[in-house]
């Protein structure tokens, strides 16, 4: 039944994906071709029609091999993650599948945890990132973590502190860092308040409340800017100050991509 839901473009792209599916359409991590098909079919509509995402710099994405895709988190609901995954699948030739690192609480949620697993979105553990990268796959990380999604609208596009774990993993696995900026997510779901009690009841870090109360992102046009891959010297055992220096370089590039994305939007709006 599911297979009928998968559109032809997604089906053709799945055939070109560099994932070793077995006869049941499963890979060694439990990623399911059928689940991917349904997911990407739905995501394609959201990516192209709902958020009308414009992707700039897709030529910077490596066509093969490992890479750590690193960028800013939008406040509220992290629609940025799914849009990055969509852009790598729909814009890259051949398509690429990115593995996200999911918050631990999501593994305890029925249905959601199962879908995350079938889509290759595993718990955010260093072991998962290292293993995926050693298998020459792409791993997407948001070094701002839950702090990033916890931003309110008044703090939009201000980067909070980057964690350093991703850089040690990049060095340990010899992976390039592919920086990106996602612009538009903050306006799609402008969070003005966090309902802490509700978040505690649901077991989530935050429960965003927008001015219109229902935490559903609006169909706001978004932009995704990729920068050139960055490589760093080392094996991941460097002292903190060295790692923090590298992380700052990534943070500066992401901040610059955000500014370029926002400036381009302002110019576009002025022309309109």
């Amino acid at each position, binding site marked *: 039944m599911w297979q009928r839901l998968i559109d032809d473009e997604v089906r053709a792209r799945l055939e070109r994906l560099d994932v070793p599916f077995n006869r*049941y359409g*499963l890979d*060694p991590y439990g990623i399911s071709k059928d689940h991917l098909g349904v997911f990407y079919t739905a995501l394609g509509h959201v990516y192209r029609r709902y958020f009308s995402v414009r992707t700039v710099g897709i030529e910077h994405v490596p066509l093969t091999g490992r890479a750590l895709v690193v960028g800013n988190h939008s406040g509220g609901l992290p629609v940025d993650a799914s849009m990055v995954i969509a852009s790598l699948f729909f814009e890259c030739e051949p398509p690429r599948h990115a593995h996200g690192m999911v918050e631990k609480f999501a593994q305890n949620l*029925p249905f959601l*945890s199962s879908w995350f697993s079938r889509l290759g979105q595993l718990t955010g553990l260093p072991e998962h990132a290292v293993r995926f990268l050693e298998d020459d796959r792409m791993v997407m990380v948001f070094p701002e973590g839950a702090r990033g999604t916890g931003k309110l609208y008044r703090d939009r596009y201000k980067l909070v502190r980057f964690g350093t774990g991703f850089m040690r993993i990049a060095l340990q696995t010899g992976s390039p860092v592919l920086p990106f900026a996602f612009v538009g997510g903050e306006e799609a779901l402008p969070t003005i308040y966090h309902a802490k009690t509700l978040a505690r009841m649901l077991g989530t870090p935050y429960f965003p409340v927008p001015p219109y109360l229902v935490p559903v992102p609006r169909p706001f046009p978004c932009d995704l800017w990729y920068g050139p891959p960055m490589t760093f010297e080392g094996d991941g055992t460097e002292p903190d100050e060295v790692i923090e220096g590298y992380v700052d370089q990534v943070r500066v590039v992401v901040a610059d991509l955000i500014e370029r994305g926002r400036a381009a939007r302002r110019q576009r709006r002025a022309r309109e």
Partner: protein
Amino acid sequence: MKVLITGIGGGLARQVAMRIHEAGHTVLGVDRRPWPDAPTGIEIFNTDVRKRPAEDVFRSHRPEAVVHMATVTHFTARREERYRINLGGTRAVLDHCHNYGAQHVVFVGRHTIYGAAGDAPLYRTEAEPPLAGTTFPDLADLVAADLYAGSALWRFPDLRTAVLRLVYTLGPSHRGTLANFLAGPRVPMVMGFDPLYHFMHEHDAADAIVLALKHRLNGVFNVAGPPPVPLSTLIEATGRKALPLPEFILPRFLGRFGLPFLPRGSLNHLKYPVVVDARPFAAATAFTPAFDEVRVMDGFRWS
């Protein structure tokens, strides 16, 4: 080479015994259970590994290698009994190996000792701590036996010790933890969860144990066959029907209406995966499974 196999009456142990025997080695076996049609040349001693007659076998026959498979994994045995057999038996076997000059011992353990938990890595390496003692207390005896067997690596440095952590086995014998779980026409699942299950064909498992012996492995090794598959796929491919039930209702149905009995703590194993990284074992022995996941499930279904 003279090899002693404890728990030789078990299905997997018999296959190991046959392979070693056919390779031209002398095979001795200790078990409380009989093996009436054991091939000529395999000598069976019907005794408990913890009893004096078992020690006499070590003393008088002086095996050079020992494969310890006399552990209880089914939950029909009482917890105290499981502790006595699994931990007490392992202690006795290791002591006898040390005291009576065995050069190599292979302890056959289970991958479930890693425990099923939502925040654990998908692929467990040998360096991962075993969590089953907290996530599933009924497995605490197997965790203790595994760790105790591992302690022989430093307590008895002259005795080469291989601790194997095997994934579930499936095969034509229809024996074992996973085979029992899949025994009925309907198999319970926790609604909303579909963990990966890691298993291998029982023939591959027997081959892997023999390879551990042949290569005189020393250390702790995960042993696995093909990649894991989701529980729903396993159920469907083995010709069963999945019965997803909400977590708060499921325990009331277990052991009734044709569903398998499972201890309460085992529900985590229906929610989260226990999958192992077996690359070090493959590198040390050149082991490659002869049966892929499709053949294992087909074989179980149609045998």
